[in-house]
């Protein structure tokens, strides 16, 4: 991964982005944060509806129709802005314990959210009993907590040294 990061750093695209770094990095990071705000707000609304704590005047289907697409499109935005950040600062992201842990959480979190948001509208009847079950409710809470962890790990990319010897970044010094 070190050599990939080095190669990526040397590409002309990475160089072009770095020339614009002073505004590009904070700008893209801010858009990335707006993206996660959209995701968190939408996931919260869906989770509260599943738990019956809010939006009970709506069916679960109405709630997922309202917020599901926002989650999916914002996730796509996160992918794009995330890739721009990696290209701009390959070593900061790719040689980083918090980053890779975050990616594991992203993989699990988006899979869980994706299965539900794509599967439920398609097979509403088949999911009907399931969405009322306690297991499903706990899965929704787990997914939401996974996204909370994703935010924490995302922020910790900037502070990877707190992981001590787990952080490849500390070994550079």
């Amino acid at each position: 991964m070190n050599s990939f990061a080095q190669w990526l750093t040397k590409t002309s695209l990475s160089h072009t982005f770095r020339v614009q770094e002073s505004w590009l990095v904070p700008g893209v990071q801010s858009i990335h944060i707006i993206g996660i705000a959209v995701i968190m707000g939408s996931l919260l609304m869906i989770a509260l509806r599943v738990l019956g704590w809010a939006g009970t005047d709506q069916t679960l289907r109405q709630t997922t129709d309202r917020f599901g697409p926002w989650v999916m499109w914002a996730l796509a935005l996160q992918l794009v802005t995330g890739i721009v950040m990696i290209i701009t600062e390959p070593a900061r992201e790719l040689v980083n314990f918090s980053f890779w842990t975050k990616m594991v959480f992203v993989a699990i979190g988006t899979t869980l959210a994706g299965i539900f948001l794509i599967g439920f509208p398609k097979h509403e009847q088949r999911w009907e009993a399931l969405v009322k079950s306690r297991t499903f409710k706990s899965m929704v809470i787990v997914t939401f907590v996974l996204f909370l962890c994703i935010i924490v790990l995302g922020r910790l990319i900037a502070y990877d040294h707190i992981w001590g010897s787990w952080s490849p970044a500390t070994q550079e010094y």
Partner: protein
Amino acid sequence: MPIDTFLKSVEATKFATAIRDSIWMFPIIESIHVICFTIVVGTIAVVDLRLLGLASTQRSFRRISSDVMKWTWGAFILAVATGLMMFSNNARVYYHNPFFRTKMILLVLAGVNVAVFELTAGRTSSSWDKAPSAPRIGKVVGVLSLAIWISVIFMGRLIGFTTHPGTVAPPTPGVNYEDFLGGPSSGGSNGNTSGGGTTTTPTPTPPNQ
């Protein structure tokens, strides 16, 4: 400058010192701050889009608002609390940072915006509760709210890029930046530490990005 004397005493509190002396406290407090304001912005946007008639148009405005706003306020209070914690750790640097000041002004404007709404369209919400969008003043409030909160995020992110050692920020007259550093600078910051923080974390010190 009395304000700087006050801010210095804030920095000297046990709590602020504990944040500076810990390698994990600031990152964790900042992470909680991020979680809270993503909930604030994400849920406020739900209400704003409803005001504008762009989403949830078939639902009662007051129902959405009561569903959402308790979470917005809860998260906002936590965001303010964690924000104050971060501020205390490096009070004078934040106070003199232009992006921090802009962010604070924007937060005041967000409050004024809410007050305007409550005194106008909010008061008559029973009459347009089921309408697909709010009266014009409510739409203006919705647009301003979205614009203000997006700007708050940009400003907040820029604070992190302009308050770490090594950033060449113009020194503020009347502030002795040497006091911040508590001794000779630990290098790696091109010698110019004006605008630098009170970072006492073990070397290497990464920027607060």
